[in-house]
């Protein structure tokens, strides 16, 4: 890890959905958002968490691996692109394969759509729309060094454990400083459930 990428800091998320609205403005999928907002403790707290494509690195993008039409391109700089519209057959294999629940299928068009890290912007050195507008920095775009320069002591994790499988991702998540050595379980930085340590 890791060049210029997105860092997700759930502790800063205020649930405003500016990222969701901004994603709709992207020229490559105008009107449709490729981000959704999760609520981690509904009814108990206002805590929320934006979900973007994690751009899996190892194993290389499960969505791309299972695609029967070879429609999902992974670029040399690790960006997992949305499906090539001339190849995608809308079979939903990628939806089932993704451990983070990211790709969406446009059922009418029979096309897969997902976050492509705003390749049309990042290729020019701009931040993706979501991270550009995020009012709190819950979505940050840059290098780990840039993040740590602005947020002294911040630690991130880029490995996630799903049962026996560990997935290494291009997008990383801010975690408590003493948890950085642990893979994040189930895609969320859960360390305690009902007072029980589940690391």
């Amino acid at each position, binding site marked *: 890890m890791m060049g210029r990428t997105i860092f997700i800091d759930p502790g800063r998320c205020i649930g405003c959905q500016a990222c969701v609205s901004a994603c709709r*403005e992207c020229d490559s999928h105008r009107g449709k958002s490729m981000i959704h907002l999760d609520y981690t403790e509904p009814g108990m707290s206002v805590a929320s968490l934006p979900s973007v494509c994690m751009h899996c690195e190892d194993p290389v993008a499960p969505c791309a691996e299972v695609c029967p039409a070879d429609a999902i391109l992974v670029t040399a700089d690790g960006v997992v692109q949305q499906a090539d519209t001339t190849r995608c057959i809308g079979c939903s294999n990628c939806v089932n394969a993704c451990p983070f629940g990211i790709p969406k299928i446009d059922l009418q068009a029979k096309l897969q759509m997902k976050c492509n890290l705003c390749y049309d912007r990042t290729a020019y050195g701009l931040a993706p729309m979501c991270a550009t507008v995020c009012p709190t920095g819950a979505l940050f775009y840059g290098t780990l060094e840039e993040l740590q320069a602005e947020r002294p002591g911040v630690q991130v994790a880029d490995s996630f454990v799903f049962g026996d499988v560990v997935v290494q991702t291009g997008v990383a998540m801010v975690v408590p400083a003493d948890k950085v050595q642990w893979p994040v379980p189930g895609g969320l930085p859960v360390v305690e459930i009902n007072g029980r340590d589940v690391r």
Partner: protein
Amino acid sequence: MTATDPAKAASRPVPVSIDPSIAPPGTRNFRDAGGIPADQWHADQNGETLVPTHCCFCGVQCGMYLRVDKGGKVFGVEPRNHDINRMRLCPKGINAYQQVNHPDRLTAPLMRRSRDEEFKECSWDEALDFTVSEIRRIQEAHGNDAFGLLGGASLFSEKTYLVGKFARVALKSKHVDYNGRLCMVSAAGANKLAFGIDRAGNPFSDILLTDCLLIAGSNVGECFPVMTQYLWGARDRGASLIVIDPRETAIARTADIHVAIKPGTDSAFFNAVLNVVIAEGLTDEAYIAANTTGWEEVKKTVAAYPPSRSAEICGVPASQIVQVARVFAGADKAMAWHARGIEHHSQGVENCLSVINLCVATGHIGKPGAGYGTITGQGNGQGGREHGQKSDLLPGGRSITNPEHRKQICQIWGIEESELPGAGTSMMEMVWQMQRGEIRGLIGICNNPFVSLPNYAVVKDGYDTAEFHAQFDFFLSETAANAHVVFPVTTWAEDEGVMANAEARVVKHNKAQEPPAGVRTDTWVICELARRLGAGKHFDFPGSREVFEELRVASAGTVNDYYGITYDRLDETGGIAWPCPSTEHPGTPRLFEDGRTYHPDGKIHMQVVEWHPPMDAYTEEYPLSLTTGRTVAHFLSGNQTRRLGALVEQTPRPWVEVHPSHGFRNGDPVRVVTRRGSEVFPALVTEAIRPDTVFIPYHWPVPTSANALTIDALDPRSKIPEYKVCAARIEAAERVDEVPAPPTPPGREAYPETQVSRTDPLPPTSPQGRGTAERS
């Protein structure tokens, strides 16, 4: 009208910071990341241009670019690296451009001779002539003061200046006020009393320098989301965050101290904090002695508020009061920011004064990273009252009752002093006067009191009683639907002008597209009405630029001095904070750095504050506090945001937030009853609210209107309504009332895709995810 060429505007220099050494976090690297700078990125694509301007909504006034296609139409938004927001935008800002060419836009004047008739589209001449004949008829029969004018704080400052001048010079009526009366006038009153100047003491960038930030009565995460980056910037430096709020909002969730205070008890809390500060010897006696008056009386008063007493009043642990005192007073530099949560009260001014007393007594004032601020709700809530739109003020913040001030302004306007009316009454009082038949005609500009004023039944009755009502708007609001004449006017993207944000930084909005055919600027309509009323020589303004030149001169030498601010300087700098007395002056982002205030003696006048209970008494029948507020997806009365698909989808309907202890389940229909009436909302069951308090967002009209239930009690000094607390009870109901769609203009189909109405009592979709699942 002076048009701004979009291509020329796009090629203007990139705005520079007031203080370039300070940049909010997470933003520093966007511009030097290589590649094409953001502001040039789209400039040559498909003939598209980017017009630099600002958001039309809240008092943060984020910079943004409007994307304009080669046909000259606004079709999108692009983040802008402006000093205020550094590319950040909230969902309202991102979706704002969609209202510019929205199918619901009014494009021809609407008229009817009585409320029994349907609206018919008519020519501009017919609408203007009918309005002028009604003004004449009413004023000849009942006197000049029988006709009133209500302005708005979303108008550019040039237009608010014109509203005040039109009322006094063309209508010759004392009855003019504006909807900023519902916004931050309590803070304004308190600041005026204490410091002699009505604005925040520090710029947003000072938040990054503070060691302790106290936020009182402000749901920053939802109401001013872009300000949150400054909060986190401070916390990254190690600053502590204290949040005073009855609800656990998104920022309260992560605060070092969250004081979940009972609504309507804020001054008891701050008095107790000051009591502890004094008891623990944490006051800055040298600062107090050199710079203040009134300290001894304040000290005596707060002695009666030991933590034990206030803890009982406020419903919070006494230990928290002590903790807040130690953290705030013990910090090297501390700041307090507040908003409507402490201002919307029958003692709103006193609440703000109690915060000021705390800042002053601890010496946290007038320094980088130390001071106070009030977070303006409306885009021009600050600028909207600075130049004479408020009932008691003349341009430059002059008092309408001060003979010297009256003389000055009459000279500028070229009228006799005897012609200038005296002080009028406030917005809510004007509605009461309409009910009593004292005000018989009204023009409303850019406001929607049918949703935004408290006690809807009284408001409706007042407007229905008026013999004539005209409204300026670009959508048919609930209030415009009651009018006799509706003038279709421009949006913020179709005209140029200035607004002052919550920091008192004056920023310039630029014109991005020509208005649709049939639509005129508010400036044109006001000047045309004045001409037909025989006052044309005082209203010879081709556009905003000419009005601004008169406004600059009219403000020269006052506390609210705009003289040094010009359109060209605003384009070059990205904003200048007033006072700015000369064109060489850099503006005044931070006040009182030399220790002097704007009172003649240069001192801070500390004011005694005694807590008193809210106006609506709790009884066995009404045991709970009802409090109201905003959601992140909607703005004020919702006239603009309730038409934008993405925002409607995000928050389609209101809800009532209740604590699990009441036994409701999510989505249950709950009737909320107050002394004004009752309405049914779906329950949003959450532990993020006090058990003795319920919350309803206020952006919707009846039958799901929070303001059908709130009380029209006013603060005696600021005349702000007590929106944030009234006595209520809740009970189970059978079904939830339907969310009404916004009124549709005559001759147009409804646009179902832009307005989602739910009739089934589904669990509400909250932007905050509160209560979106069953509790186990």
